[in-house]
């Protein structure tokens, strides 16, 4: 879901660079309290893993593909603040080294995928882990549902930006409908990948899953010290 140059007007793109920088600055401040010797290397791995999986476009309809955005995966494994920074790192590397996602659109892309998508995923993960069983299966279901919602909400970020600075006069309703429709399908794909990944980590090293350490309910307070 990388926006290319010229789709959103210059002034709106510039405004979103400011928004993205402000959002990332908040994430850096908050991430500092989360990051310790255990989380830092894990966060580097999550960023590298998201980069790799973003290369794997899967077919969702004839002539349409999609790839994981990574917000949900990152929230569950390293938390919302560090997670947003992981996705942003990937987007910046892709833009600067691989010419993927326009340079002037970098603020739009960071806002949609690193900030909006990750925030939506975080709210869903935090809510779902209160109701679903706190085991490998519950974590997988959480990842699956939060991925679908996170991807669709991120795609609505684009629709909002297009309503503010779209360079061609088009029906917003039709754009929103197409975007939501294909991104539900992409979200299902992302959900399967994210669920498989977090379930694997939860089986091998449950102590490295941020969501199991920090998103705790009263009844599970005693699980980890």
């Amino acid at each position, binding site marked *: 879901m990388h926006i290319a140059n010229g789709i959103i007007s210059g002034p709106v793109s510039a405004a979103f660079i400011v928004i993205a920088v402000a959002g990332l600055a908040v994430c850096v401040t908050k991430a500092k309290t989360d990051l310790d010797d255990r989380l830092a290397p894990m966060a580097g791995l999550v960023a590298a893993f*998201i980069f790799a999986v973003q290369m794997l476009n899967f077919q969702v309809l004839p002539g349409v593909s999609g790839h994981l955005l990574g917000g949900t995966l990152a929230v569950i494994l390293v938390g919302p603040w560090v997670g947003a920074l992981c996705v942003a790192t990937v987007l910046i590397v892709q833009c600067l080294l691989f010419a993927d996602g326009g340079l002037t659109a970098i603020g739009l892309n960071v806002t949609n995928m690193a900030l909006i998508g990750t925030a939506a995923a975080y709210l869903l993960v935090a809510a779902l882990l209160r109701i679903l069983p706190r085991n490998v299966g519950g974590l997988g279901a959480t990842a699956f549902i939060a991925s679908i919602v996170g991807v669709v909400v991120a795609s609505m970020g684009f629709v909002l930006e297009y309503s503010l600075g779209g360079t061609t006069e088009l029906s917003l309703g039709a754009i929103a409908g197409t975007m939501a429709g294909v991104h539900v399908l992409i979200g299902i794909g992302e959900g399967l990948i994210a669920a498989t990944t977090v379930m694997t980590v939860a089986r091998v090293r449950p102590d490295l899953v941020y969501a199991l350490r920090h998103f705790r309910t009263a009844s599970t307070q005693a699980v980890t010290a």
Partner: protein
Amino acid sequence: MSKKLFIVGGLLVALLLAGVVSSFASGSPDGLDYAAREGCTVNAEGEITGGTCMAQQEGEHQLGDSPLADYGIKGINNEYLSTGLSGILGVLVTFGIGGGLFWLLRRRSSTPAP
């Protein structure tokens, strides 16, 4: 499994995905690119030939001529090799930049790390 082993194992999985599996990924436009071209007619190269759509004013990437542009390595003609090596490089660069940044930002514990 020790944490170090876990990180190394995870990196190997990422390298395998970006280095090998990536060559078999779908080449179709992604959801946004598809939506952006809806209403326009495009030729075999994906260039817009007519109609009205979001991508009409789409511009070239400023760094479109960079050596790794579009997930390939300039000068390597074998597609599998070009895509795979660019993916491996991307994973290592992302791990280096991300990991380095997070390492610098981390809370220093009172006891030095082993």
